[in-house]
């Protein structure tokens, strides 16, 4: 009557990074792990059918409202606080539109994004003050999908709009529970095809110590760290640097007794954003990386900076792992969750690695 847990199922827990408080879907700080979930669905499952794609319309529209509100409110705040405040003052023609959109976006239920509203959003988006605010997106807690959706506004508001896979990958929605997905990187039914179950626990915004031990026995923990966030502050505490928070979290997870024998996969995620940012914002703004010395501008710098960050995580891993845990598997992967090919390749590598360690045991 009671079947034992089948041993050819591999349970992996997706690690987490702090997510912003989300009344009405606001907030940022996603490490990209739910994007990875969507990629998995696209790569290793049947993908999204039309009904599922359509189900994302309200989320995407919500993201549009949230983005423009963050920009509008952000511009207003910066115009009061910053020394050269004038550049954040929204032009008189757009102020009324701005207030209206901000009010709409503050409601619990958003109206459908129709042509008239899109026209207003576009007008506001193009306001120099808003553009100025956008350029310091890190300060105002702007989600990464902001630019993508702003640049596709017309398409999003069409009457017969069906979101593309790309749109869905960019969409941001917060869950409260645990998201679960089952897949096989090699292909279900194929010989040697391991079944993976992935659990995303990022939706829990509470005391992890009270439930983390539920995961004792998973084969691996995937920890997603958005390396592009070295200059950003937490949504819920603007005095705290996100990278420092990630560092503390990673350290904490490594030390948990329930993961003594568990393999760790570290995804250094959002490499694409990291690549662009490193040219403008020095790594050393983050306390953990304060001893970083740049070498030369351009591609070389990106690689150099990435290796530096990777080394910091490696050092942290070994510091936080007691001697009796040295034989646990630890692998680092450079990822860009939006890049489907890269995600596919990463999971194939993980699959090989997990196989090897299971055969060895």
């Amino acid at each position, binding site marked *: 009557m009671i079947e034992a*847990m089948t041993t050819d199922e591999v349970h992996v827990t997706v690690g987490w990074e702090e997510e912003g408080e989300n009344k009405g879907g606001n907030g940022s700080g996603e490490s990209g792990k739910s994007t990875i979930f969507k990629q998995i669905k696209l790569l290793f499952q049947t993908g999204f059918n039309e009904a599922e794609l359509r189900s994302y319309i309200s989320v995407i529209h919500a993201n549009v409202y949230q983005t423009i509100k963050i920009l509008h409110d952000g511009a207003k705040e910066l115009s009061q606080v910053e020394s050269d405040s004038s550049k954040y003052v929204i032009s008189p023609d757009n102020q009324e539109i701005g207030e209206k959109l901000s009010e709409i976006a503050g409601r619990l239920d958003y109206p459908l994004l129709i042509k008239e509203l899109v026209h207003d959003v576009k007008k506001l988006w193009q306001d120099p003050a808003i553009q100025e605010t956008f350029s310091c997106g890190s300060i105002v807690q702007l989600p990464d999908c902001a630019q993508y959706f702003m640049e596709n506004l017309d398409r999003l508001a069409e009457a017969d709009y069906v979101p593309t896979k790309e749109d869905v990958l960019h969409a941001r929605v917060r869950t*409260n529970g645990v998201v679960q997905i089952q897949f096989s990187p090699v292909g279900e039914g194929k010989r040697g095809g391991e079944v993976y179950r992935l659990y995303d626990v990022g939706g829990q915004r*509470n005391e992890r110590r009270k439930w983390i031990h539920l995961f004792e026995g998973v084969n691996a923990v995937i920890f997603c760290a958005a390396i592009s966030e070295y200059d950003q502050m937490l949504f819920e505490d603007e005095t705290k640097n996100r990278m420092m928070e990630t560092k503390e979290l990673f350290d904490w997870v490594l030390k948990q007794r329930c993961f003594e024998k568990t393999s760790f996969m570290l995804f250094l995620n959002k490499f694409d954003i990291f690549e662009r940012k490193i040219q403008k914002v020095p790594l050393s703004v983050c306390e953990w990386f304060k001893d970083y010395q740049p070498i030369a501008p351009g591609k070389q710098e990106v690689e150099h900076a990435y290796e530096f960050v990777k080394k910091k995580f490696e050092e942290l891993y070994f510091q936080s792992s007691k001697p009796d845990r040295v034989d646990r598997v630890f692998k680092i992967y450079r990822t860009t969750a939006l890049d489907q090919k890269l995600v596919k390749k990463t999971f194939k590598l993980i699959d090989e690695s997990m196989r090897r360690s299971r055969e060895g045991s």
Partner: protein
Amino acid sequence: MASVAELKENHAVATAKVNTLRERLRQRRQMLLDTDVERYSKAQGRAPVSFNPTDLVCCRTLQGHSGKVYSLDWTPEKNWIVSASQDGRLIVWNALTSQKTHAIKLHCPWVMTCAFAPNGQSVACGGLDSACSIFNLNSQADRDGNLPVSRMLTGHKGYVSSCQYVPDQETRLITSSGDQTCVLWDVTTGQRISIFGGEFPSGHTADVFSLSINSSNTNMFVSGSCDATVRLWDIRIASRAVRTYHGHEGDINSVKFFPDGQRFGTGSDDGTCRLFDMRTGHQLQVYSREPDRNDNELPTVTSIAFSISGRLLFAGYSNGDCYVWDTLLAEVVLNLGTLQNSHEGRISCLGLSSDGSALCTGSWDKNLKIWAFSGHRKIV
């Protein structure tokens, strides 16, 4: 309109003021507390409870879970037990025969709590899915032999840590959650009737981990939290807590009303159990372990229960100990963890049968055990 900086400063000033007032309150209470239960009882010459190691024995080991046991609950009338495990299953046991009558596969395996409905026909469970699922034990199993969920109570924004049906009311259930609130649900409609805490002030300021409804007055319940406080709630007035109880120095993992409904007990990460007076808010007694000789990490209290009379307090600990405390004299009269046949891991949950004749303990060693008073021993 005040700037962000001004608001932050006002907030800091207000917080400091609250802390000062709180400290003054604490000192005032200290002054008024002239004695505790232990000293009073000893002064009265109360005789200790006499307990032999053979008075309480393990008479059943319920094996069947393939993962850690996290929660258990007895039926109010018959001797059935429902248990929840990390293996993603609820099992319903006949405690007398050890037979498993139901094995329910859960959609979300991360379950943290389970409870029997008053009529014994349904069970509820909840966990990391942030929802409470109700199963009717009489419903038809599907093709795969699984019981369907008859109702899902959704709305919490964090894990469900504990759930309890309102005694004698099949349709009302209270949950506690990692989202810092407790909720009263109407099981038939799935609607939230009241939310305790959250947006309203006087709610908990951290995860709520446990709750206990007063069987003498089912309008009242207490909740214990990671904010180290217990709060008393009146179901009819959700907007504010009736009272907050301070004293513990760590997460409160378990709260239970004392049989007379005038007091309640608590168990905490700070390694102690405490007894509080519901009406006055006074901390009546602290039950602290002797420090470990080996100076290991202090075992935490995971779960508690009172005997029928309240003379005994059962406390399960993270290191597998299960102390039987004499509540009056604050002495440990028995440690079930050292008896024959004891658990081999953390005690995660425990509960007394409704007639008080048996104690069931659940452990991370994947088993449940039933302990019964043997021989001439009367139920205490």
